[in-house]
């Protein structure tokens, strides 16, 4: 704690010396949430999101520090979400440092948006800016009119941040007996060979916007290699050892958006060259199998009766499938979003939902926000999980109501 306070004072002192030229922005937010089932608080968090911008000529600097005080655990968490330099040239820009990199045209779904890993500590519920983890990287954008070529080098791999074991968001593990975990292979050594590389070409034009991308990366989610010992007498499982391990992934993808009459039509897809899946095939010692994999969506944005709407159909497909793979061959999901503003855009009703077809589950998120004055906002909402199993149904006990108050400066 002392260390954090000293760091904060040091930061304030440092900033003070440059204060005249730096733009300070950010927000302060209080977030209170409670579970509908038992009335327990699920969130009690105060956040100070502080953004500093400085630019002089063709050089810029951006720092985003987030101070989160968890009222339930009394912990103060200080996170440097982004800290980077921008250097602007005639035809290209260079960004170096910890940064969030967002690709693709999908909303609330991650298909070609695979550069910045995710923080799933609170599942998919925080704002998307807060889900994405800033990664230390070098990004070059080269421009030719409305064409852009982007190259990204991530020298050090960062995995998905998963909820801790005490969290209500810790995913259910589907093992017949309690396993032991061996994390010895989970870490990726920090060296040049273990870097991640991404390339993207994008065009923004009157007829269509599209992106072509490719990446040589690590799978952000570890593969669970499962080793079991069978008792030869009972033929029952004696022990289970789970070894989480990240694997290399090659990926190519594309996305587009275009206007069709009164609609915006969007599409996005990615081909994964070799992704690991768990299998029940007894011949495979570590219960994982490598298969090529497709992930794609098609979406429409439109306005009806003054309500802005958006819907997406998403499919994940495992190629060369066999029935022993634990995942379904095809997994189908839909999203639906609608919002309308009133009172000169000060009152907003919003609705977002994920609907899983394989497990008949869903996440439904209604929200009302009202601007008390410019930059001063109150939000009331709910997160309703429907179903008994699946990505959303697993959290059926976590239905919650929440309120937020936020001041942006």
């Amino acid at each position, binding site marked *: 704690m002392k260390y954090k306070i000293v760091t904060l004072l040091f930061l304030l002192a440092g900033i003070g010396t440059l204060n005249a030229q730096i733009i300070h922005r950010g927000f302060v937010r209080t977030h209170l949430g409670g579970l509908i089932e038992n009335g327990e608080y699920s969130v009690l968090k105060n956040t100070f999101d502080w953004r500093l911008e400085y630019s002089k000529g063709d050089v810029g600097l951006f720092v985003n520090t987030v101070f989160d005080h968890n009222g339930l655990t009394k912990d103060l968490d200080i996170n440097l979400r982004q800290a980077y330099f921008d250097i602007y040239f005639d035809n290209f*820009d260079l960004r170096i440092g910890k940064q969030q990199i967002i690709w693709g045209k999908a909303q609330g779904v991650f298909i070609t948006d695979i550069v910045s890993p995710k923080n799933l500590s609170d599942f998919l519920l925080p704002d998307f800016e807060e889900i994405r983890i800033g990664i230390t990287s070098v990004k070059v954008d080269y421009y030719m009119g409305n064409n852009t070529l982007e190259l990204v080098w991530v020298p050090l791999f960062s995995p998905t941040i998963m909820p801790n074991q005490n969290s209500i968001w810790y995913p259910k593990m589907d093992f017949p007996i309690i396993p032991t975990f061996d994390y010895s292979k989970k870490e990726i050594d920090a060296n040049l060979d273990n870097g991640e590389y991404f390339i993207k070409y994008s065009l*923004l034009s009157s007829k269509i916007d599209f992106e072509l991308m490719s990446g040589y990366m690590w799978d952000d989610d570890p593969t669970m290699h499962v080793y079991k010992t069978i008792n030869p007498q009972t033929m029952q499982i004696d022990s289970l050892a789970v070894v989480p391990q990240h694997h290399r992934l090659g990926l190519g993808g594309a996305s587009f958006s275009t206007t069709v009459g009164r609609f915006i039509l969007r599409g996005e897809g990615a081909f994964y060259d070799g992704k690991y899946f768990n299998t029940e095939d007894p011949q495979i010692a570590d219960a994982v199998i490598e298969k090529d994999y497709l992930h794609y969506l098609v979406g429409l944005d*439109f306005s009806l009766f003054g309500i802005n709407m958006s819907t997406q159909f998403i499919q994940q497909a495992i190629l060369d499938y066999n029935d022993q793979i634990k995942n379904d061959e095809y997994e189908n999901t839909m999203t639906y979003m609608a919002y309308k503003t009133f009172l*000169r855009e000060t009152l907003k009703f919003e609705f977002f939902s994920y609907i899983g077809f394989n497990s008949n589950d869903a996440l439904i998120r209604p929200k009302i926000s009202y601007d008390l004055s410019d930059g001063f906002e109150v939000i009331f909402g709910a997160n309703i999980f429907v179903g008994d199993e699946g990505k959303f149904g697993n959290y059926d006990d976590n239905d919650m109501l929440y309120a937020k108050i936020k001041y942006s400066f």
Partner: protein
Amino acid sequence: MKKITLILLLLIIVVSILPAKELTGLQIIQKVYNRSTGNDQTADLTMSLINSRGDERIREIKQFLKDTNDMEKKIMFFTTPADVYNTSFMNWSYDEDGKDDDQWIYLPALKRVKRISSDSKSDYFMGSDFTYDDLGDRQPTADTHKLLREEEIDGEMCFVVESIPREEEYMYSKTIAWIVKDKWIGMKKEFYDEDDDHLKTLSVKKYKKIDGFWIILQSEMHNIQKEHKTIMKLENVKINTGISDNKFTERMLKRGI
């Protein structure tokens, strides 16, 4: 010979005493539409939204415009209020009849440039009294125009033109505009709703010749039915500075001002 000279003289006298041919409503509106405001323009735009209680909200925008041969490009960077800071909006508007605008928005929270539909022209811009369509250049052929009369406003002689939309579903049943003779600036415009009731009035409060072009620097849109008004001010206006095409790209949407 004398006879011919006499006839010619008579003809000249007759022609000179005949009234000048009057402009039609369409010709007047076309002159307003074609009034040049330069090839490009940079300005700081401030909108004050004032409700019936006198409460005021401020929206500030830095905007860049460029006219090319077949389209007008516009990019806007929102600076106030704080929760929309760094949001940017780009519009490509085409001269070609019937071709819809292309629009993109960059939301810093999503860090993504998103194509949006230009279908929502009747939506109010940032909660103001101006719709997106009010802020754009409406094609003269979209309405039928009728010159009603000539009238003086603030010491300026104006043509008064009524415009009725050809499109049945349009948000206004008609508009009446007061156009300053010779300057071709709309000094005042009344908007009528679907029931033909007076909805709002646009009044130009200040205009100035900058680098040879008449530019409206301050206007007020007053919604009479809701007792709400928006004052729009342009400051630091610069004309024909040679803004590069590169200003109207994805790069600038993301980079900001």
